[in-house]
Every structure is written in structure tokens, then in C-alpha cells.
């Protein structure tokens, strides 16, 4: 069990590092899909089967396709493998800041007071979640439905082609 966890951990971290460090954008997107898959596997090891399935459906399925689609739409075929300057000027600040945050979080984890053992629940209670969604969490659930509708309409409105003639204006 522990070995499986470490395998998944290395897999996920390596995919994440690849996704932010490859120069070719398509490679980044493919590494990202593998990263999402690793997260889903982590959720399965935590016995949150439902969330793992949701992760696969939404991230590995939908968001990956969305990102690949956006990549294809916004780059000329000749620039897809563009290797010139993929990192910003302040990249070293970014790397150092990332390492610093990881160091701080890892240091803080040393002060974890107790090391609890996993609870006896063998699996995530999906029926309970469904019940909560229509009782105690009904208001956030409806708000979420509203938000998703607004996001759908909004993104269509933003991305739609306007026939105005100042589109040529750089």
C-alpha cells in the first residue's frame, strides 16, 4: 500500500514538473493529463472513489480536451513547437518562490501534533453526499448551478466573433 502511494506520488510530481518545464506546449498538455490521472489515483488510495471518478470525468476528460483545444486554436501550426523563450524574465524568482513555499509548508508539517490513523469508513458515502446536496447544502448547490450557467453563457459571449471592423487593430 505504501509502495503504491510512493509510486503514485513520484508519478504525479514528475508529471507536474514536466507540465511546467517542457518547452513544447503539446508535451506540457500531455504531461498535465498524466498529472490529473495521478491525482485521481491519489483520491482512489484515499478511498474517495466517487471523487476519483469525478476527477477522471471532469479533469482527465473535459478540462484536458478544453486545454488542448485552446492550444490548437490559438497557435499557428508552425508555432506549436515554438521553443523560443517559454519562461518569463523573472523565472528564477518564480522557481525560488515555489521552493520557498514548499520548504515553509514542509517545515510547518513537522509541528503536526498527532499522527491520526485512517478512519474505519471503508468508502465515501455517496448516498449521504446526495442527501446533503438537496438538504443542508442545497443553497450552495443551487448557487453552483447558477455559477456554471453564468460561466457557460459568459464564455460563449466572450469568445464569440464580433463582426466589428476594428478587429484588425493590433
Amino acid at each position, binding site marked *: *500500500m*505504501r509502495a503504491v*502511494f*510512493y509510486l503514485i506520488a513520484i508519478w*504525479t*510530481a514528475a508529471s*507536474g514538473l514536466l*507540465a*511546467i518545464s517542457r518547452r513544447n506546449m503539446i508535451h*506540457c498538455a500531455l504531461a*498535465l493529463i498524466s*498529472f490529473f490521472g495521478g*491525482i485521481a489515483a491519489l*483520491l482512489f*488510495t*484515499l*478511498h*474517495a472513489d466517487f*471523487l476519483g471518478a*469525478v*476527477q477522471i470525468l*471532469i*479533469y482527465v476528460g473535459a478540462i484536458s480536451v*478544453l*486545454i488542448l483545444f*485552446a*492550444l490548437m486554436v*490559438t*497557435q499557428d501550426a508552425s508555432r506549436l513547437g515554438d521553443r523560443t*523563450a*517559454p519562461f*518569463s524574465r523573472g*523565472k528564477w*524568482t*518564480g522557481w525560488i*518562490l*515555489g521552493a520557498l*513555499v*514548499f520548504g515553509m*509548508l*514542509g517545515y510547518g*508539517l513537522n509541528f*503536526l501534533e498527532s*499522527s*491520526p490513523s*485512517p*478512519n474505519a*469508513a471503508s468508502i465515501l458515502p455517496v448516498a*449521504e*453526499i446526495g442527501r446533503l*446536496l438537496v438538504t443542508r447544502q442545497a443553497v450552495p448547490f443551487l448557487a*453552483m448551478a447558477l*455559477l*456554471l450557467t453564468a*460561466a457557460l453563457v*459568459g*464564455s460563449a459571449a*466572450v469568445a464569440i*466573433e464580433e463582426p466589428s471592423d476594428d*478587429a484588425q487593430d493590433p
Partner: protein
Amino acid sequence: MPSLHEYLLLAAALFSIGLAGALTRRHIILVLVSIEMMLNAANVNLVAFWRYGNPAATDGVMLVLFGIAIAGAEAAVGLALLIAIYRRFRTSRIEEVARLKG
């Protein structure tokens, strides 16, 4: 079964990778991708706390569900904005979209 500490450390590492990506990459899509990676790392944290805490307290799991929905909406709107920006500026690099810059 790995300990809670290991899960939290892994989530911290994934979060830091996402943060570094958001700060170092030039391409708008990769910045969005890095933000998604940070959200995913936070989700692992929440589920780990559910697993190692009280199984009846499903609040963390609900938060993950809502978080995934918000992340989906964010990705859709962000990529729509990216397409609009690309049509307008013919570029998808953050530094070249500088019309509002003083």
C-alpha cells in the same frame, strides 16, 4: 497505509509545483494550467483530512465537489478570455498583452 503527514507533504509539493509554474511560464494557457494544479493539490489535502478524521464529517468532501465545479467554470471562462485575447492581440503570451500597462 501512508500517514496523513505524507499526504500533506505530497499536496504541498504539488501546490508548490503549480505555484512555480504560474510564476515562471509565459504562455497564458500554462498559467491557467498551473492554477488548476494548485486547486488539485488543495483537493488532495481536503480528502486526506476526511480520510484521517471523522468519517461522518463530509464537509471537506463537499468542499472538493464545489471546488471542482468552480475550477471547471474558471477553466472555461479563462480559455474563452484567452481566445478573445488571441483574436485581438494575435499573441498568447502574457507579456505582450500590455495595452493597459502604464
